[in-house]
């Protein structure tokens, strides 16, 4: 084996082509890789952000936040473009969910989702906000304070799609800034949220579509998540409750519920195995949030 590589290294053709290939590769990535996240934002798919929305309906608001790290941490490449962590599954997940809610419940929803930051002045017009892929998220002091007010007034935060111990720890640290002294509690299977509309025996583990069936498991692989991933096998619904027992913040850990909405059209197997469960969870959670 050593002699084969030695002969290749000495080949004039290899010696001429290899550097050229490196230069082309560097040039290619230089041309297309963003120099900063701000540039990426310009390249991101144009997002609809309606100014007027009917407040008598449930309007989805995806929270835009900053993340730590570089490529593979704060952002990643998928399906031909870069995605910031906050926009994972957005907006197709919300669009599909709006349609399915109309079929599965009597919840009236706005059809076009919105994106907001925690400091957006009209955040209070969305009594429920959604965050995805929060394992690398970071919040400013203003965002922490805004979220405190939002939750204290009766708002609800659903954080989804964060896996493993490290991502959990990161999000837990953030939430302890918002609700110091409050503790995460694993929502038991007997909690009413699991039976408001559909009977859900336990929190389902829903992998991203691209990881579904990976080695026959429902857990996503550790390499796709923050190190050290630790345990990714068991999906849980964890919550922060206020002094009246109201669920204020819900984290669906070790599961990617929103991907089940976004990817329902990506194959019958995925739809039947995972999307249906995602929608059951969504209907139950949203009904619970709109009644408590």
């Amino acid at each position, binding site marked *: 084996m050593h002699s084969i590589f030695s002969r290749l290294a000495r080949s004039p053709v290899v010696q001429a082509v290899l550097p050229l290939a490196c230069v082309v590769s560097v040039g290619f990535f230089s041309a297309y890789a963003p120099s900063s996240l701000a540039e990426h934002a310009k390249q991101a798919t144009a997002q609809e952000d309606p100014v*007027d929305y*009917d*407040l*008598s*309906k*449930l309007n989805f608001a995806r929270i835009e936040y900053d993340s730590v790290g570089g490529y593979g941490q704060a952002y990643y490449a998928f399906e031909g473009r870069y995605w910031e962590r906050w926009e994972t599954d957005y907006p197709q997940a919300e669009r599909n969910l709006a349609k399915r809610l109309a079929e*599965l*419940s*009597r*919840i*009236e929803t706005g059809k076009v989702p919105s994106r907001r930051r925690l400091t957006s002045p009209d955040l*209070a*017009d969305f*009594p429920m906000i959604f965050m995805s892929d929060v394992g690398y998220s970071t919040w400013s002091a203003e965002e922490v304070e805004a979220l*405190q*007010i*939002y939750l*204290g*007034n*009766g*708002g609800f935060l659903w954080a989804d799609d964060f896996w493993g111990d490290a991502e959990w720890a990161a999000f837990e640290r953030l939430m302890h800034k918002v609700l110091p002294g409050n503790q995460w509690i694993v929502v038991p299977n007997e909690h009413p949220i699991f039976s*408001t*509309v559909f009977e859900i025996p336990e929190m389902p583990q829903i992998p991203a579509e691209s990881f579904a069936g990976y080695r026959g498991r429902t857990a996503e692989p550790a390499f796709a998540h923050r190190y050290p991933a630790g345990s990714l096998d068991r999906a849980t619904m964890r919550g922060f409750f206020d002094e*009246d027992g*109201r669920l204020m913040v819900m984290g669906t850990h070790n599961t990617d519920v929103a991907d089940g909405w976004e990817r329902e059209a990506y194959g019958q197997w995925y739809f039947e195995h995972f999307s249906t469960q995602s929608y059951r969870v969504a209907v139950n959670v*949203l*009904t619970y*949030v*709109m*009644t*408590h």
Partner: protein
Amino acid sequence: MFEALSRYPREAYAQGEIVLTNVVDARLWILGIAIVTAFIIAGVVFGARTKIYRAWQKALIATLQVAVVAGVIGLVAGPHLRTSKIQPGANTIAVLMDTSQSMEFAADGNEGQQRQDGVTNRYDAARSVVEGTLSEALEDIAEVSYFTVADVASRVDGFAQNPNFVPSTRLVKSIDMVLQSFRGAPLASVIVLSDGADNDEAGLAVAALANFGVPVHTVGFGPLELPGETVLMDVRMPADAPPHSLVTAEFILEHASAGAALVQVRDRGTLLAQREIELDPTTSIIRSDISFASGDAGIRELSFSVVPPETDQLEENNFVDRLLTVSQRQRRVLYLEGEPRWEYKFIRRALQGDDVVKLASWLRTTDRKTYRQGVETGAQLATGFPVDKASLYAYDLIILGSIAATLLDDEQHAWLETFVSERGGSLLALAGREALGDGGWDVRPLARALPATLQRQAGPTYQETVGKVGITRDGYASSLLVAQGEGAPGLLSLPELRDIQILGASKPAASTLLELTTPTGVRPLLITQPYGLGTTAILATATTWRWQMSTPLGDERHSLFWRHLTRQLAESAPRAKSVDLIANGDRVEIRAWVRDEEFAPLPTSVANAKITRPDRSEVDILLTPSEIPGLHVGAFTPSEQGVSRVDVAIDGETRNTITRFMQFGASNSEFVDPVRNEGLLRRISEVSGGMYWQPDDVDALREQLSFSGAGIRTIELLPLWNLPIFFFLVLMLKLCEWGLRRFWGGV
């Protein structure tokens, strides 16, 4: 002058009739007069001496001559005045002197000042009238009996200089007592000296005095008005309230001044609330309200008072005492909602933990699934809308959300309407896609009960908009909105609403409390009306949740608005079995409603009341069914000041015992209306055939009594032929006739 010409007093002519004693057969007299008249006319017309007169002159002369002859013939006919006259010494005249506390007030309205005649108060003025000329004049024609009247009538030998003034008056009742006591005895007349105060709320009707046939003459004392006086006439408030709630009391002020007055409410001296009231000089009666916190459970001995302008004279009519029982009494509220929405969440959130309102809700989560919250049993609302009338009537307030009318059957729709009209419950309709007109409620019985007609139009009546809340004049005065502190005025600074349900015209009895100013105009937002025994309201928005989400942390205006609105609506609904205590002078009336779960009266039920007095003694009273089905009534007289407890048991069952408390204290009812009640005094005299007199005119009362009244009387024929006026009349006629003839040259 009259008597000089007519010899007899006016009263004699007013009461008597003129008769001709010498006329046996009127036809002969008429024939005679006719013959004489014919001779006179012939003489004037055809007489030689009358040729110089013209025809009209002859006619005039003939007329005068006939008149003279007729006058003479009339005197010959024997005119007499037949009248009845009181038989001296054979009758009694009752003189009634009012000795209630109001007779202690100044005679002319200037408290503390003495008149030039030495009279300081009304009693003195009345006594001076009796002891002046009246008593002596009356004793000439009858035996005089003296009585003092206040809450009862008492016979006395004379009127003391300083009597014991009684704090209440039952004037009509006292007069009735005196008349009753003289049944069968020759009572010629009754004379009442009073200022006309009568605080017997359920008193005897004045018309009953006519039954005795004895004239009652009234003499009024006291000024007709007191300039500058301010009176706190009445305070109405619920008898009980839940702990830590806002209680609203309505009060009535009567004033004859201008400026401002301060109304205060205290609990055993501790100031609970106060409010400045502007005294409008264009109206003498002001109705307003004052709100205060109920505090912890227990009995509140409240004192309402008014600090009037400096012109006020009587302090005693500036306060009213009331008792408030603060107790844990939950009100049951049913919320029916057709879709999960934020308004539903935040209303539930606002009412959560309220120890007064017990909220049960039923929500359609899907087209085939529902979600119940706040239910007490597994069966409650298991099939959705309450299964029978009794279950529905168990609630005090129903909130209708965005729920289509088609979900209920005809019978359930009928129950909803009778829930308000017959049961007396309250109903609040919210806005929504399937609410009100958009939900098909416009063609249902409940539409009659709602305070606005439900709009029908091509498009939906539920619309997106942006609007700012405004409070109407009715809203500021309404107890449905929190009236003080951060309440009603605090609504004005709340975030905008983002929807509106377009309503039709308001019903005549409706009041718009809140309105929404939108780009397309001002719309009614909160509108309410009484309907039957209950109340209905429409809140034409479903985005009040913004008042919670879009306000600073800790801002409680949203929950305060909903808690107060819900409590007030629920509190106004009566219970199937309830007891009210109503003060009436020195008596307390007990009114017990005894109805079944469908609020139908229970005619065979028996209600007993046990009264525990302040001294711990007990009295049992059987309440009797009244004319109103389901209502049992009774009464008792508190024997001493303090708080009495009344336990009313229905059919002897302990679980059906209702407890109420009543405070009885020193009454200030005499001070509430301190001016002369001339209207009542006139009415008493007119109904009974008497007259109303001013104190200065009572000298003529003797003649009035001589020739009118009841008792033993003699019939007298008083000759009229020798009246000076007849002599002068005949003489004047003859002189006129002669004068004319001379003037025309015939003499």
